């Protein structure tokens, strides 16, 4: 064992993992994870059930220790006892299950956590009021949480993660169990938090959320299979897509365009020709010229991309 890295060495605001690995009695939950999440970034972790997303978040929150490798939050080592308290006070965690004190009210739950995070009284109470108001729970603040619906509990749990205004926010499936409107509230709220410059790591099975919220996503299945912005990933796994809508289609166009260098595939659906291309700025003009020269009439040309769902499935299937 070498000397532990001193906190000051990596004193830049971000999350970094180096060969982060966690095993549970022989089962490898997370293997050799190398991640770097920049300050102010919203990073989404996708992956099938049991992929190690929750385990990763728990390691980053200094709740469970890595079997090997290391992770740093703001330059602090999650495996370092003396760093752990500071990491926990900088991190807001939304765990998989809300885990509220059911017999206590929403207000009491948040008060307790506010105190545990050491938020001064007046600040704490103002903050709780603001959180409960935003999340539309202010009128129910004195009711026991046991009487709350699943979504309401999830909202209280989100408020709890934010009560100390953490710089780092780890959200484990934030919109799961929420109705579309509540999910929207939460999503907008996350956007707001992102605007405030917080660094957010979120686990989700909701690819729509991932696409809308995340600057970058990582697809995990024990190992990190892919990483990048949703668009980059779509381009990487499907190439760029160009869609040409025509008024009339001359015979042989789908076959002819394949001869244009850089066109990878072509597919005709009704009046729409969908093409995978290497670089739209090079191939698109050539394609349009070719169609016109063959007597075709182009209505419009559109840049198309595969949805994140296709991308995700492809990554997972290709990931072995």
């Amino acid at each position, binding site marked *: 064992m070498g000397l532990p890295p001193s906190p000051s060495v990596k004193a830049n605001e971000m999350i970094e993992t180096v060969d982060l690995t966690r095993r549970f009695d022989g089962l490898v939950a997370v293997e050799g994870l190398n991640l770097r999440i920049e300050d102010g970034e919203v990073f989404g972790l996708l992956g099938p059930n049991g992929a190690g997303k929750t385990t990763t978040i728990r390691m980053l929150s200094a*709740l469970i220790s890595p079997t090997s490798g290391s992770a740093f939050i703001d330059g602090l080592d999650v495996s370092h006892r003396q760093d752990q*308290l500071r990491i*926990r006070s900088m991190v807001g*965690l939304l765990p998989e299950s809300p*885990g509220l*004190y059911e017999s206590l009210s929403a207000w009491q739950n948040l008060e307790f956590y506010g*105190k545990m995070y050491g938020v001064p009284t007046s600040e704490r109470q103002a903050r709780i009021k603001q959180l409960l108001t935003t999340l539309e729970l202010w009128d129910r603040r004195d009711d026991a949480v046991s009487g709350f619906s699943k979504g309401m509990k999830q909202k209280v749990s989100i408020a709890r993660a934010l009560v100390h205004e953490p710089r780092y926010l780890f959200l484990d499936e934030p919109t799961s169990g929420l109705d579309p409107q509540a999910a929207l509230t939460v999503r907008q709220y996350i956007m707001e938090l992102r605007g405030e410059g917080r660094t957010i790591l979120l686990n989700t099975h909701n690819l729509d959320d991932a696409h809308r919220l995340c600057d970058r996503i990582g697809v995990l299945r024990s190992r990190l299979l892919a990483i990048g912005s949703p668009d980059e990933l779509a381009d990487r796994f499907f190439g760029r897509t160009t869609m040409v809508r025509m008024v009339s289609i001359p015979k042989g166009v789908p076959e002819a365009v394949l001869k244009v260098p850089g066109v990878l595939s072509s597919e005709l659906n009704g009046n729409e020709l969908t093409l995978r291309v290497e670089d739209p700025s090079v191939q698109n003009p050539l394609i349009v010229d070719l169609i016109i020269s063959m007597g075709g009439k182009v209505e419009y040309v559109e840049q198309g991309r595969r949805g994140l769902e296709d991308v995700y499935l492809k990554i997972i299937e290709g990931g072995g």
Partner: protein
Amino acid sequence: MILRWDRVGIIVQKEFSEFRRNKYILYSLVLMPIIFATVLPAIYLIPVSSMSEGPANGPLDLDLNLSSSMQGEYLSDVVLSNISLVDCTVQNAIISNCRLENCTVEGSLVEGSDIIGGGFTDSFVQQSNLDGTDLVGTTVQDSFLAGQPSDTETAILLLLNILLIFFILIPTVIPTVVASYTIVGEKINRSLEPLLATPTTDLELLVGKAASIFIPCVLVTWAVFLPFVIIVNTITEPALGYSPMPDAIWIAGVFLLSPMVCGMSILSNVIISSRVTDVRSAQQLGSLVVLPIVALFLIMAMGLIPLTALNIVFLALVVLIIDLAMLNLARRTFRREEILVNWK
């Protein structure tokens, strides 16, 4: 490891708010001690105390009618009655309505006599007053032994010793209920994970949990001690002629031993609750901690170890050492890694 008492205080406060809303915890914190401290002594002490006809502390009124006296004689195989005997040696005699002072008596039957000093061997004494007489192989029945407790007094004092077991059981049993609800409850609710995510140490959590159980248990034990003393004294005073409570044994038992035993019960219940998934099995296993306590007291009540205040203090020290050992064990169970990975 860091232990900040303000953190512990916040946890204790939160636990108290939860206790207030859990009727099982409230029952066990209020009803159980009241029953232990009021109903139990009444049930045990009233029958014994009411059997005796007032304080049996005075000598029997024998109304002796002494017609002659002897001094320094040797007597054997005789029947003696209404005689004052001083410094005599008596063998194989039947003695009734006599006064014996410093006599040596062997193999005799003595009845309705005043006996002062001297020594009795292999004899049978009934309905007499004895004062400072050595007794060897001699049976004494329905008599007054000066300076010796009466049968009723002996019975009441023995019962009080057994009641001390019940009293010590108050701070032993309540934690099995409270701990099972708070710890297994947090497990079922999964409320430990967000708690563990706060900037608090495992030790603060453990101490907070334990203190929140310890404080009400010990306070309630002490609180019911006062009515208990009043009830015991009210019941037993007519039979004893004095108030037996509180004595040094009880003071040591209630104020020293019971907090130690309470700590032991809490810590073992913390450990047990971490291993089981439902409240009922936590309580069933947890209630086993009363067994060593009961066993110890039975040993004391049976006289194998004399039940003295000093021995109670000594016992409290032994339990304190056990507490410290268990605290060490509980600390190992109460680590966040352990809680999140192995508590199921």
